[in-house]
């Protein structure tokens, strides 16, 4: 199909098809059926799969050996690993296990000339050759169609417990609690501050909350939860709450990610979370320095709320000391936010070299 030279829309299982800019393509190339394990050596903690393999399948296969791929992008676990890598999507676990780029050891992709390229390898450390793996990760299919990936796995922590802490009170009181949680004594594997709207959607109550996930051996986890009890009143939750948080994304029409210096984000977190905007879900990862704002299609819309006002306000406030990444927007809004994220000469040169006829997902990055 690539050699035909016709513009192609590259898809996995279509779980994130509403993300990215509108694509102008006449045909679709789906990787959904190019799925399955190529090799899995549990003792090496590495897994090679075809791109159409779903995250849920990877979790099942590795779970049988008490291992996991600690990669939990927002949205449904029915999404494919190929799409996850192509969009560099990551979730709450990324603040401790790293982003997609940090978990990827190698890949196979097909460039815009139909050539099959293998980059990286299957071992956990590798500097042979220029790093095409990192280059293609997050390129949204515009440099190549990812067909296979090799991933680094971890052992599932023997103890894996999640607690919730209600953040009620004034912004000032809330800020004090938040500051207390940033301490070397606590090393959660995931840490999210979520808005009241998310609390309600997850049936966690009527106030903003902090969700903390501790993983490791029993003693390490016990010690951290005890330490947390010194400064707050944690309540234990099922670990499934993280899946529910991710799946809230399923019905969003707008998703905006704002990243900033962690301390700056933490400083404004209390104020942002105090706002009660029922239609807008906001969650903050204070260690990764990322705030995610989504607008759900089925949440009640309050007075004067528009899709992305809150996000725009924050990004305007910070005077260029933050980065705004638009993941999803209503189609007609795209043109207004940013023409292209690959307009610089280096990116243009790379695009031209790898996809000379501009047939791979044309338009999705603004091109």
């Amino acid at each position: 199909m690539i050699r035909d030279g016709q513009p192609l829309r590259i898809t996995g299982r279509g779980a994130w098809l509403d993300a990215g800019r509108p694509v102008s393509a006449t045909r679709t190339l789906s990787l959904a059926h190019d799925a399955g394990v190529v090799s899995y050596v549990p003792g090496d903690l590495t897994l090679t799969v075809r791109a159409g393999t779903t995250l849920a399948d990877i979790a099942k296969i590795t779970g049988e050996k008490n291992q996991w791929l600690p990669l939990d992008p927002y949205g449904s676990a029915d999404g494919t690993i190929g799409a996850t890598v192509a969009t560099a999507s990551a979730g709450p676990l990324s603040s401790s296990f790293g982003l997609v780029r940090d978990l990827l050891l190698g890949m196979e992709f097909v460039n815009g000339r139909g050539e099959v390229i293998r980059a990286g390898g299957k071992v956990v450390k590798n500097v042979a050759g220029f790093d095409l793996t990192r280059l293609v990760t997050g390129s949204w299919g515009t440099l190549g169609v990812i067909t296979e990936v090799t991933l680094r796995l971890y052992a599932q922590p023997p103890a894996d417990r999640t607690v919730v802490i209600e953040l009620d009170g004034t912004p000032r009181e809330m800020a004090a609690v938040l500051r207390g949680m940033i301490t070397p004594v606590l090393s959660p594997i995931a840490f999210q501050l979520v808005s009241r709207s998310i609390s309600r959607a997850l049936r966690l109550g009527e106030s903003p909350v902090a969700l903390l996930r501790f993983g490791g051996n029993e003693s390490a986890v016990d010690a951290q939860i005890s330490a947390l009890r010194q400064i707050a009143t944690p309540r234990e939750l099922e670990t499934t709450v993280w899946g529910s948080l991710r799946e809230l994304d399923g019905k969003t029409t707008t998703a905006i990610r704002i990243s900033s210096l962690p301390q700056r984000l933490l400083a404004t977190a209390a104020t942002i979370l105090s706002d009660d905007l029922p239609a807008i879900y906001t969650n903050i990862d204070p260690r990764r320095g990322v705030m995610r704002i989504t607008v759900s299609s089925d949440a009640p819309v309050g007075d004067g709320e528009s899709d992305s006002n809150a996000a725009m306000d924050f990004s305007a406030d910070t005077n260029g000391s933050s980065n705004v990444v638009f993941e999803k927007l209503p189609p007609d809004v795209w043109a207004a936010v940013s023409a292209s994220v690959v307009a610089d000469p280096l990116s243009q040169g790379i695009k031209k070299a790898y996809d000379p006829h501009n047939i791979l997902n044309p338009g999705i990055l603004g091109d």
Partner: protein
Amino acid sequence: MVVERLAEIVGESHVLSRKSELLVYNSDGLPGYRRQPKLAVFPGTREEAIAVVRYLAEQNLSFVPRGAGTGLSGGALGDDIIVVGLHRLKKVISLDIENRRATVEPGVVNLRLNRYVAPHGLLYAPDPSSEAACTIGGNVAENAGGPHCLKYGVTLNHVLALTVILPSGEVVQLGNPVGERDGYDLRGAFIGSEGCFGLALDITVRLTPKPQTVRTLLADFTSVDQAAHVTSAVVASGIVPAALEFMDGPTIRVVEDSIYAAGYPRDAEAILLIELDGLEAGVVADLETVRRICLEGGARQVKVARDDAERMKLWQGRKKAFGAMGRLAPHLIVQDAVIPRTKLPEILATIHGISQKYNVMVCNVFHAGDGNLHPNIAYSADDPAESERVHKAMREIMQACIAAGGSITGEHGVGLDKMGYMESIFTDTSLNAMCELRGVFDPDHRSNPGKVVPVHSCKEWHGTPAGRRQPTEHQPPPLEAEPSRPVAR
């Protein structure tokens, strides 16, 4: 004329042009490769560095960026080339303690950055064994690793952003120091590009909080095989040690005979140096698990360092092991292959067989937790028969690692040294894709020409005028020149 102009930019004393002065710059830390540069220039400020690169661009002159010259791939060198040394650019530009990041110039020495941030309870995680001398700029060029990269990741995982001057003289920012951005990961592409994509003017790195607790244990074994199996068992247990290092009997005895003696048991055939760090409660529990795995795997003894002084001593022996090899013979050859960790027992047995076949002494001291081997042979290059046996043995070891599904280099880089193996692990189209990427950053291949990817693999490029000018230098293994001094690493 070039000399005069460069002297105008950086000052006369910072341009070297006499052959005798340039001798130091004709090799990196792997002295098997020697290339005679025609000039060396050492800018003292960012502005001077920019002016130098722009002048070289105007004149269409090739150059090679160089940090401390501690590389182990035959990378930062070239015949008839201009060395742009960056060790004078050694300012820490900014330190943001709260957000745990620092922006530094490329010539800042790795250990110096660590000492600078240590009082704030922070560290810069990648710790190549040459940390006392190597620069952050060089670390970025090689995507350097080190013992503690097992848990913390390599340079790539710790660099947030860079300001880079391309060979054309254009200054660009890659990545973003403030936060994540979208678009292509040009920062990721630049890291590990071995000086072929230009040079970094500043680097923003992530700093890591010092762990609450660190415990280092030494397990000793009467067979290499036992230690290899224990390594695989620790990895498979799911515990991620901060470091898991392996030294075999010959290495132990060389180190113990040297000034770096660490108190390793001389009669052991292998030791594992395992470090665990993190929260106190977790480390104590993991330490017991690791101790049990070691003892069940046949360790004679498991000794835990009592204090920092004892810990440092244990590490000193490991980090200076290559230096200690200088006692054995005047020359040293080192490899850097990475293998799947379950293959460790098998490959170590193969290496042993190869060493017997060629009657050479292979010392193994390496990052076992990552499967990153550093088999090395001390020998005398003045003995042609011995040299030949050494090179044949090394080639066979590399082929065994490739056959096991491994990579030819885990942290040292390709340079000239491993270029001959690139075609064993990558197809022509993959190598060409690498050339195309280089072509975007450096269309004329003026920045560290002839490295990493064999020139003949670059389909589009070697037919161009610039391509034809390039010496079609392609070094098939084994090493063509001979080391003349032991490698200190």
